[in-house]
Protein backbone atom coordinates (compact mmCIF):
# COMPACT_ATOMS: atom_id res chain seq x y z
CA UNK A 1 0.00 0.00 0.00
CA UNK A 2 1.17 3.51 -0.73
CA UNK A 3 1.34 6.34 1.76
CA UNK A 4 -1.66 8.11 0.32
CA UNK A 5 -5.22 7.08 -0.41
CA UNK A 6 -4.46 6.21 -4.02
CA UNK A 7 -5.03 2.49 -3.79
CA UNK A 8 -8.77 2.21 -4.18
CA UNK A 9 -8.31 0.22 -7.39
CA UNK A 10 -5.87 -2.22 -5.89
CA UNK A 11 -7.68 -5.54 -6.04
CA UNK A 12 -4.84 -7.88 -5.21
CA UNK A 13 -4.25 -9.31 -1.72
CA UNK A 14 -2.28 -6.73 0.18
CA UNK A 15 1.17 -7.56 1.48
CA UNK A 16 2.10 -7.12 5.11
CA UNK A 17 2.35 -3.51 6.13
CA UNK A 18 5.99 -2.57 6.62
CA UNK A 19 6.09 0.97 5.22
CA UNK A 20 4.92 4.06 7.05
CA UNK A 21 1.22 4.07 7.98
CA UNK A 22 -0.98 6.01 5.59
CA UNK A 23 -2.71 9.15 6.84
CA UNK A 24 -5.93 7.25 7.42
CA UNK A 25 -4.23 4.27 9.06
CA UNK A 26 -2.65 6.72 11.50
CA UNK A 27 -6.10 8.20 12.01
CA UNK A 28 -7.55 4.78 12.85
CA UNK A 29 -4.82 4.10 15.40
CA UNK A 30 -5.16 7.57 16.94
CA UNK A 31 -8.97 7.38 17.17
CA UNK A 32 -8.84 3.87 18.65
CA UNK A 33 -6.29 4.91 21.27
CA UNK A 34 -8.24 8.03 22.23
CA UNK A 35 -11.47 6.02 22.55
CA UNK A 36 -9.73 3.45 24.76
CA UNK A 37 -8.21 6.15 26.98
CA UNK A 38 -11.59 7.78 27.43
CA UNK A 39 -13.18 4.48 28.36
CA UNK A 40 -15.55 4.45 25.37
CA UNK A 41 -14.25 1.09 24.16
CA UNK A 42 -11.66 -1.34 25.45
CA UNK A 43 -8.83 -2.90 23.45
CA UNK A 44 -10.37 -6.28 24.24
CA UNK A 45 -13.72 -5.23 22.78
CA UNK A 46 -12.04 -4.08 19.55
CA UNK A 47 -10.13 -7.36 19.29
CA UNK A 48 -13.28 -9.38 19.94
CA UNK A 49 -15.27 -7.40 17.36
CA UNK A 50 -12.57 -8.06 14.73
CA UNK A 51 -12.65 -11.76 15.57
CA UNK A 52 -16.43 -11.89 15.46
CA UNK A 53 -16.51 -10.34 11.98
CA UNK A 54 -13.77 -12.72 10.83
CA UNK A 55 -15.98 -15.61 11.98
CA UNK A 56 -18.90 -14.41 9.85
CA UNK A 57 -18.83 -15.61 6.30
CA UNK A 58 -20.70 -17.26 3.46
CA UNK A 59 -20.69 -20.62 5.30
CA UNK A 60 -23.14 -19.15 7.80
CA UNK A 61 -25.53 -18.10 5.05
CA UNK A 62 -25.08 -21.44 3.30
CA UNK A 63 -26.24 -23.17 6.46
CA UNK A 64 -29.40 -21.06 6.48
CA UNK A 65 -30.09 -21.78 2.79
CA UNK A 66 -29.51 -25.53 3.23
CA UNK A 67 -31.91 -25.59 6.18
CA UNK A 68 -34.53 -23.73 4.15
CA UNK A 69 -34.15 -26.25 1.31
CA UNK A 70 -34.57 -29.15 3.74
CA UNK A 71 -37.26 -27.86 6.08
CA UNK A 72 -40.34 -26.19 4.51
CA UNK A 73 -41.55 -24.87 7.88
CA UNK A 74 -38.18 -23.20 8.47
CA UNK A 75 -38.27 -21.75 4.97
CA UNK A 76 -41.68 -20.24 5.66
CA UNK A 77 -40.38 -18.65 8.86
CA UNK A 78 -37.25 -17.42 7.06
CA UNK A 79 -39.31 -15.70 4.37
CA UNK A 80 -41.62 -14.20 6.98
CA UNK A 81 -38.93 -12.85 9.32
CA UNK A 82 -35.35 -13.47 8.23
CA UNK A 83 -33.70 -12.15 11.38
CA UNK A 84 -35.83 -14.31 13.69
CA UNK A 85 -35.25 -17.45 11.61
CA UNK A 86 -31.47 -16.85 11.64
CA UNK A 87 -31.62 -16.45 15.40
CA UNK A 88 -33.03 -20.00 15.57
CA UNK A 89 -29.70 -21.15 14.13
CA UNK A 90 -27.74 -19.01 16.58
CA UNK A 91 -26.98 -16.28 14.04
CA UNK A 92 -27.37 -12.73 15.33
CA UNK A 93 -28.23 -10.22 12.61
CA UNK A 94 -27.21 -7.34 14.86
CA UNK A 95 -29.20 -4.14 14.49
CA UNK A 96 -30.28 -4.90 10.92
CA UNK A 97 -33.47 -6.52 9.68
CA UNK A 98 -32.97 -9.37 7.21
CA UNK A 99 -35.39 -9.81 4.32
CA UNK A 100 -34.97 -13.06 2.37
CA UNK A 101 -36.17 -13.06 -1.25
CA UNK A 102 -36.81 -16.39 -2.91
CA UNK A 103 -35.97 -17.30 -6.49
CA UNK A 104 -38.83 -18.97 -8.35
CA UNK A 105 -39.36 -21.07 -11.42
CA UNK A 106 -39.01 -18.09 -13.74
CA UNK A 107 -38.01 -15.49 -11.18
CA UNK A 108 -34.48 -14.39 -10.32
CA UNK A 109 -33.54 -11.98 -7.52
CA UNK A 110 -30.36 -9.94 -7.09
CA UNK A 111 -29.37 -7.48 -4.36
CA UNK A 112 -27.48 -4.19 -4.38
CA UNK A 113 -27.03 -1.05 -2.34
CA UNK A 114 -27.01 1.82 -4.82
CA UNK A 115 -26.38 4.49 -2.18
CA UNK A 116 -23.47 2.85 -0.37
CA UNK A 117 -22.67 -0.74 0.52
CA UNK A 118 -25.42 -2.15 2.74
CA UNK A 119 -25.03 -5.92 2.75
CA UNK A 120 -26.14 -8.82 5.00
CA UNK A 121 -22.72 -8.67 6.71
CA UNK A 122 -23.89 -10.17 9.98
CA UNK A 123 -24.96 -13.23 8.01
CA UNK A 124 -22.39 -13.69 5.23
CA UNK A 125 -19.45 -11.47 6.24
CA UNK A 126 -17.99 -8.37 4.64
CA UNK A 127 -18.92 -7.58 1.04
CA UNK A 128 -16.61 -8.15 -1.94
CA UNK A 129 -14.98 -5.07 -3.46
CA UNK A 130 -17.13 -5.11 -6.58
CA UNK A 131 -20.34 -4.93 -4.52
CA UNK A 132 -19.18 -1.56 -3.18
CA UNK A 133 -17.86 -0.23 -6.48
CA UNK A 134 -19.46 2.21 -8.90
CA UNK A 135 -19.96 -0.16 -11.83
CA UNK A 136 -22.11 -2.66 -9.95
CA UNK A 137 -24.09 -0.11 -7.94
CA UNK A 138 -24.86 2.05 -10.96
CA UNK A 139 -25.68 -0.57 -13.52
CA UNK A 140 -27.38 -3.50 -11.82
CA UNK A 141 -30.60 -1.54 -11.32
CA UNK A 142 -30.72 -0.45 -14.96
CA UNK A 143 -29.37 -3.44 -16.85
CA UNK A 144 -29.37 -6.36 -14.44
CA UNK A 145 -29.22 -9.01 -17.18
CA UNK A 146 -26.10 -7.47 -18.67
CA UNK A 147 -24.43 -7.28 -15.24
CA UNK A 148 -25.42 -10.86 -14.44
CA UNK A 149 -24.00 -11.86 -17.81
CA UNK A 150 -20.63 -10.45 -16.72
CA UNK A 151 -20.76 -12.95 -13.85
CA UNK A 152 -21.50 -15.72 -16.35
CA UNK A 153 -25.15 -15.91 -15.34
CA UNK A 154 -27.51 -15.91 -18.31
CA UNK A 155 -31.14 -15.35 -17.35
CA UNK A 156 -33.63 -16.35 -20.07
CA UNK A 157 -35.66 -13.50 -21.56
CA UNK A 158 -38.96 -14.89 -20.30
CA UNK A 159 -37.78 -14.88 -16.66
CA UNK A 160 -38.53 -11.98 -14.38
CA UNK A 161 -35.50 -10.32 -12.73
CA UNK A 162 -36.07 -8.41 -9.51
CA UNK A 163 -33.38 -6.08 -8.15
CA UNK A 164 -33.59 -5.26 -4.44
CA UNK A 165 -31.94 -2.06 -3.21
CA UNK A 166 -30.84 -2.42 0.42
CA UNK A 167 -30.97 0.23 3.12
CA UNK A 168 -28.96 0.90 6.24
CA UNK A 169 -31.53 -0.83 8.43
CA UNK A 170 -32.78 -3.55 6.11
CA UNK A 171 -30.63 -6.11 4.29
CA UNK A 172 -31.62 -8.59 1.63
CA UNK A 173 -30.39 -12.09 0.97
CA UNK A 174 -31.36 -14.23 -2.01
CA UNK A 175 -32.69 -17.73 -1.36
CA UNK A 176 -31.71 -19.63 -4.52
CA UNK A 177 -33.67 -22.60 -5.83
CA UNK A 178 -32.54 -26.00 -4.65
CA UNK A 179 -30.62 -27.61 -7.52
CA UNK A 180 -32.22 -30.63 -9.15
CA UNK A 181 -30.59 -33.97 -8.51
CA UNK A 182 -30.03 -33.32 -4.81
CA UNK A 183 -32.86 -35.48 -3.48
CA UNK A 184 -31.89 -37.12 -0.22
CA UNK A 185 -28.86 -34.88 0.33
CA UNK A 186 -27.95 -33.86 3.87
CA UNK A 187 -27.96 -30.21 4.89
CA UNK A 188 -24.17 -30.25 5.03
CA UNK A 189 -23.98 -31.57 1.47
CA UNK A 190 -26.50 -28.99 0.28
CA UNK A 191 -24.62 -26.16 2.00
CA UNK A 192 -21.60 -27.08 -0.09
CA UNK A 193 -23.48 -25.93 -3.21
CA UNK A 194 -24.28 -22.50 -1.79
CA UNK A 195 -21.82 -19.72 -2.61
CA UNK A 196 -21.64 -16.13 -1.45
CA UNK A 197 -22.39 -14.91 -4.95
CA UNK A 198 -25.57 -16.98 -5.29
CA UNK A 199 -26.85 -15.42 -2.04
CA UNK A 200 -26.16 -11.98 -3.56
CA UNK A 201 -27.93 -13.25 -6.66
CA UNK A 202 -25.21 -12.69 -9.26
CA UNK A 203 -24.80 -16.43 -9.78
CA UNK A 204 -26.75 -19.66 -9.27
CA UNK A 205 -25.80 -22.43 -6.82
CA UNK A 206 -23.15 -24.90 -7.90
CA UNK A 207 -24.39 -27.90 -9.85
CA UNK A 208 -24.50 -31.13 -7.79
Amino acid at each position, binding site marked *: MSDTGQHSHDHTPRPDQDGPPSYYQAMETAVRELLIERGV*VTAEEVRA*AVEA*MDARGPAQGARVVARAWSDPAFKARLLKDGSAACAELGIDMGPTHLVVVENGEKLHNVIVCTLCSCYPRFLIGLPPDWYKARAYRSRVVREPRAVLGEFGTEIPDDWEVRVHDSTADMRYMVLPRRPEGTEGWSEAQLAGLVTRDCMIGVTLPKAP
Partner: protein
Amino acid sequence: MSDPGRGYHDMGGLPAGPVERGEHDYALWEKRVDALLVLLSDKTRDLVRVDELRRGIEQLGPGAYDELSYYERWIASITGVLLGKGVFTSDELGRRMAEVEARAAGDRT
Protein backbone atom coordinates in the same frame (compact mmCIF):
# COMPACT_ATOMS: atom_id res chain seq x y z
CA MET B 1 -22.72 14.80 -12.45
CA SER B 2 -25.32 16.71 -14.44
CA ASP B 3 -28.30 16.56 -12.06
CA PRO B 4 -27.73 19.20 -9.35
CA GLY B 5 -30.30 17.57 -7.06
CA ARG B 6 -28.52 14.24 -7.04
CA GLY B 7 -25.87 13.39 -4.46
CA TYR B 8 -22.57 12.12 -5.73
CA HIS B 9 -23.05 8.83 -3.88
CA ASP B 10 -26.50 8.35 -5.44
CA MET B 11 -25.37 6.43 -8.51
CA GLY B 12 -28.17 3.94 -9.13
CA GLY B 13 -29.08 3.77 -12.83
CA LEU B 14 -26.16 5.89 -14.07
CA PRO B 15 -23.93 4.59 -16.85
CA ALA B 16 -20.68 2.95 -15.77
CA GLY B 17 -18.09 0.49 -17.04
CA PRO B 18 -17.91 -3.26 -16.59
CA VAL B 19 -17.87 -4.78 -13.10
CA GLU B 20 -14.28 -5.41 -12.01
CA ARG B 21 -14.38 -8.78 -10.33
CA GLY B 22 -11.09 -8.63 -8.43
CA GLU B 23 -11.19 -8.71 -4.64
CA HIS B 24 -8.73 -8.10 -1.83
CA ASP B 25 -8.43 -9.46 1.66
CA TYR B 26 -9.07 -6.82 4.25
CA ALA B 27 -6.05 -5.54 6.18
CA LEU B 28 -6.10 -5.54 9.97
CA TRP B 29 -6.47 -1.75 10.17
CA GLU B 30 -9.53 -1.98 7.89
CA LYS B 31 -11.07 -4.66 10.11
CA ARG B 32 -10.42 -2.42 13.11
CA VAL B 33 -12.29 0.45 11.46
CA ASP B 34 -15.18 -1.94 10.93
CA ALA B 35 -14.95 -3.10 14.55
CA LEU B 36 -14.94 0.50 15.83
CA LEU B 37 -18.17 1.19 13.97
CA VAL B 38 -19.80 -1.99 15.28
CA LEU B 39 -18.91 -0.95 18.84
CA LEU B 40 -19.69 2.76 18.51
CA SER B 41 -23.08 2.04 16.92
CA ASP B 42 -24.22 -0.56 19.44
CA LYS B 43 -27.13 0.08 21.77
CA THR B 44 -25.04 0.86 24.84
CA ARG B 45 -22.73 3.40 23.18
CA ASP B 46 -24.95 4.76 20.39
CA LEU B 47 -22.26 7.32 19.46
CA VAL B 48 -22.07 6.86 15.70
CA ARG B 49 -25.29 5.80 14.02
CA VAL B 50 -25.31 4.27 10.56
CA ASP B 51 -27.09 7.30 9.10
CA GLU B 52 -24.45 9.57 10.62
CA LEU B 53 -21.71 7.42 9.11
CA ARG B 54 -23.38 7.70 5.74
CA ARG B 55 -23.95 11.42 5.97
CA GLY B 56 -20.27 11.87 6.78
CA ILE B 57 -19.25 9.77 3.79
CA GLU B 58 -21.64 11.57 1.47
CA GLN B 59 -20.25 14.91 2.63
CA LEU B 60 -16.69 13.97 1.70
CA GLY B 61 -17.37 15.38 -1.77
CA PRO B 62 -16.80 13.88 -5.22
CA GLY B 63 -12.96 14.02 -5.14
CA ALA B 64 -12.44 12.31 -1.80
CA TYR B 65 -15.31 9.87 -2.43
CA ASP B 66 -13.47 8.39 -5.41
CA GLU B 67 -9.90 8.82 -4.18
CA LEU B 68 -10.29 7.31 -0.74
CA SER B 69 -10.61 3.58 -0.31
CA TYR B 70 -13.68 2.18 1.38
CA TYR B 71 -12.44 2.06 4.95
CA GLU B 72 -10.57 5.34 4.54
CA ARG B 73 -13.97 6.90 3.89
CA TRP B 74 -15.34 5.15 6.96
CA ILE B 75 -12.62 6.28 9.38
CA ALA B 76 -12.80 9.84 7.99
CA SER B 77 -16.54 9.88 8.63
CA ILE B 78 -16.40 8.17 12.05
CA THR B 79 -13.73 10.66 13.15
CA GLY B 80 -15.86 13.57 11.95
CA VAL B 81 -18.87 12.36 13.94
CA LEU B 82 -16.77 11.87 17.10
CA LEU B 83 -15.23 15.34 16.72
CA GLY B 84 -18.68 16.80 16.25
CA LYS B 85 -19.84 15.20 19.48
CA GLY B 86 -16.81 16.37 21.42
CA VAL B 87 -15.51 12.89 22.24
CA PHE B 88 -12.07 14.36 21.50
CA THR B 89 -10.88 17.60 19.95
CA SER B 90 -9.13 18.12 16.63
CA ASP B 91 -6.03 19.26 18.56
CA GLU B 92 -5.97 15.98 20.50
CA LEU B 93 -6.47 14.02 17.32
CA GLY B 94 -3.72 15.88 15.47
CA ARG B 95 -1.25 15.40 18.30
CA ARG B 96 -2.06 11.72 18.60
CA MET B 97 -1.73 11.13 14.86
CA ALA B 98 1.70 12.80 14.93
CA GLU B 99 2.68 10.50 17.82
CA VAL B 100 1.43 7.44 15.93
CA GLU B 101 3.48 8.40 12.88
CA ALA B 102 6.56 9.12 15.01
CA ARG B 103 6.24 5.74 16.77
CA ALA B 104 5.93 3.97 13.45
CA ALA B 105 9.02 5.75 12.16
CA GLY B 106 10.89 4.76 15.35
CA ASP B 107 9.86 1.12 14.90
CA ARG B 108 11.38 1.02 11.46
CA THR B 109 14.82 2.35 12.46
